[in-house]
């Protein structure tokens, strides 16, 4: 069980900088700039928060399937 976990951990370490940059521009800057925290923005923020980590997990799953 430790191997997939370490693979996921490694993937998140490798993508930490792109992830942080993406979150900074799509979420932190608009909030810092005074974007209204409306329901639409919060829904958008939730999607923006969840999709990139899910993509990383998906890529890990594909890689595990290809190279067991």
């Amino acid at each position, binding site marked *: 069980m430790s191997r997939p976990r370490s693979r996921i951990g490694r993937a998140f370490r*490798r*993508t930490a*900088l*792109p*992830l*942080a*940059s*993406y979150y*900074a*521009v*799509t979420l932190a*800057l608009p909030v810092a*700039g005074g974007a209204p925290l409306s329901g639409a923005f919060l829904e*958008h923020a939730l*999607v*923006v928060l969840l*999709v*990139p980590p899910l*993509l990383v997990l998906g890529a890990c799953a594909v890689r595990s399937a290809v190279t067991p």
Partner: protein
Amino acid sequence: MRTAAGVAAPALGGGVVKLRFVVLAVAVLIAWGLKRHYADARAEDLAWILAPTSRLAGAMAGTTFMPEPGEGYLSREHLFVIAKPCAGVNFMVAAFGMLVLARLHRIGSLTSAARVLGASLVASYGAAVLVNAARIVGALWLAAHPIVWSAWGAAEIHRLEGITVYFGGLVVLCEMVQWLGRRAVPVGRTS
């Protein structure tokens, strides 16, 4: 002192640390300036990024985008507009910040600081044009195949495609920079 890669790391003088803080401050100013320009700009003011993006997307998709005053660039064939929100400036800002942070440890002199800032700006611009053009080509394909995605709305699909392509573009760009960094001269031997 040796790094994990076994490369001799230079002792960090106070001057180098200060220089890196200055570079970070300049990078923040550039990013803020880009965001300000983007917020106030009309579509015509963003021709510096919209025009090459529309030309590249048109070449990739086999269509022509023509300037549409006040709107952006329009493909009459696909009834598709590359408007101001699709300019890719936010991607460029994210890529620029990421590249500066990824190369910050390489800065040891004014020359290398200018090189990191300049190269990051140019690379983030090129990446924004390329990644955004790819995103637009994907959006054109999705618009032409709505039946495939009938379970979700077009807006949701467009948003998911945007997040996937932009985040994927940042990851690929970061990997390329790391790979180039490993091929380049070790940290201790930079100018």
